[in-house]
């Protein structure tokens, strides 16, 4: 379980460019939930995920992961519980390292690292099996440099890396946005498959409202650094994009057009 309570975060505090990105953001995600997150540009989605991961520290509020208060911990001290896949396919892997070296880095996520050889024989079966589940033939290219792979392949490997070891939450920030539609669909299906088979708890940011409703078990919308609505279960079933827009307008008393939400 992961819970964020009343998170406040202002970028550039005390400067003319002061920018409140999180303004009382609260959200609790239960074990096994798959939450999709939507919101217009600048709503604070990435900032929220960065705050959960530890990349930015909040000004106030509290973040608890599995009963441990992690609010003040830096990224690397949360990595044992928090796994993530970035939007940029180049960001989640090291291009100069081989596929097996990247996987070897990930299999030790959040654990101490010693002086024994990083790429161990006993990992090989797991590496091969998980790579072959992608059907990309990568299981025969373990020694190839990551940089030789396409964006979609790299993103698929990033997903595998995030799921090699158990985590309390998997953070996905528009991880299919930089891919062509076909590859994006492949990576999304892979995401659903991995989350379902490993029963992961996940938070996925997407710019597609349609996708947000089709995937996962719960949808939250952020606006100006807060949750404006949060739907799941029966209420969510059968909901359509236009209903979401209606909900948003009702909640905020605001007029929003399709453009500002960039729906897909």
């Amino acid at each position: 379980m992961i819970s964020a309570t009343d998170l406040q975060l202002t970028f550039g505090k005390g400067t003319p460019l002061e920018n409140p990105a999180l303004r009382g953001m609260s959200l609790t995600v239960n074990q096994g939930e798959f939450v999709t997150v939507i919101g217009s540009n600048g709503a604070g989605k990435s900032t929220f995920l960065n705050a959960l991961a530890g990349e930015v520290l909040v000004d106030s509020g509290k973040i608890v992961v599995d009963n441990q208060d992690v609010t003040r911990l830096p990224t690397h001290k949360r990595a044992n519980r928090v796994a993530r896949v970035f939007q940029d396919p180049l960001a989640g892997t090291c291009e100069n390292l081989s596929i097996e070296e990247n996987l070897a880095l990930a299999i030790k996520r959040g654990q101490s690292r010693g002086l024994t050889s990083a790429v161990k024989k006993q990992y090989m079966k797991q590496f091969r099996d998980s790579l072959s589940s992608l059907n990309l033939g990568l299981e025969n290219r373990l020694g190839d440099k990551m940089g030789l792979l396409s964006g979609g392949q790299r993103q698929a490997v990033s997903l595998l890396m995030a799921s090699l070891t158990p985590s309390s939450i998997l953070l996905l920030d528009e991880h299919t946005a930089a891919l062509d539609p076909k590859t994006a669909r492949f990576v999304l299906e892979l995401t659903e498959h991995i989350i379902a088979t490993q029963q992961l708890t996940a938070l996925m940011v997407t710019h597609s409202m349609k996708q947000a409703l089709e995937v996962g078990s719960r949808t939250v919308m952020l606006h100006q650094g807060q949750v404006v609505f949060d739907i799941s279960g029966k209420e969510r079933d059968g909901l359509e994009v236009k209903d979401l827009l209606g909900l948003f307008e009702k909640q905020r008393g605001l007029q929003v057009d399709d453009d500002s939400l960039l729906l897909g």
Partner: protein
Amino acid sequence: MLSEIAFYGALETGLIYGLVAFGIYISFRVLDFPDLTVDGSFPLGAAVAAVLIMGGWNPWLATGMAIIAGMAAGAVTALLNVKLKILNLLASILTMIALYSVNLRIMGRPNVALLGEETVLTPWYELGLKFHQVPVLLFMVVAVVVLVLLWRFMKSETGLAMRATGANPRMARAQGIATGSMIVLGVALSNGLVGLAGALFAQSQGAADVTMGVGVIVIGLASLIGGEAVLTPSTVVRALIACIIGAIVYRLAIAFALNADALGLKAQDLNLITAVLVTLAIVLPGVRTKIAHRLTRKQA
């Protein structure tokens, strides 16, 4: 032609600068941390080893202390960057400048001569080799041992974490790697190797001098870049071998250049030649690919 003594002399210094190039490979290539501390940690290693040897220490222990001193200097640079957020290049310049004073303090005067003292080389002279072959043999052994250790380290869990830190720090953090600690460890390791090189240099030259560090960074870079041009560094072990080859080729090239009377070069031109060579080595690969590009386009 190069005399036999000049040839072995070039090999000897080449092997020492190979150690410097290892250090620069770690900072510049593995960590992407442009570190100029080496201009201070090279004479630091020399000073520590020379003073301790003069004080009656076992030369290998004195050399070990030189490594530790170099590591401490590197750690200072890295901590200035990691903890105090000073730009890496500037942090290293600060340490380098500070080391000038430190080195003078350690030696108590601008230079310390080691004539007649027992050094790491002394026992090897009894093997019956030619006088000028001894340092080459010993330094070759040292270089190979260091190469193998570094190679093993870079393949280890910690070494891989260090490589990830330099290549993609955000990803490294997300994998739970304390990137700040990795930078401190790596820059310390790098300068430890440079301290070792300084200690060996002082022992083979018979003196430590406070000015002997001037330009070491450029020579090390020349070796690194030259080696990479000769041997494409696609793997860690190739990159490490390239450091040694680059350093030896560089020293041989310098020896030939100084030896060729027609060129009219003198020892004091060394730094100028080095700077020109480094510039060429940095620019040439780009020029080469451009030419190749043009040629292939014409064919097409």
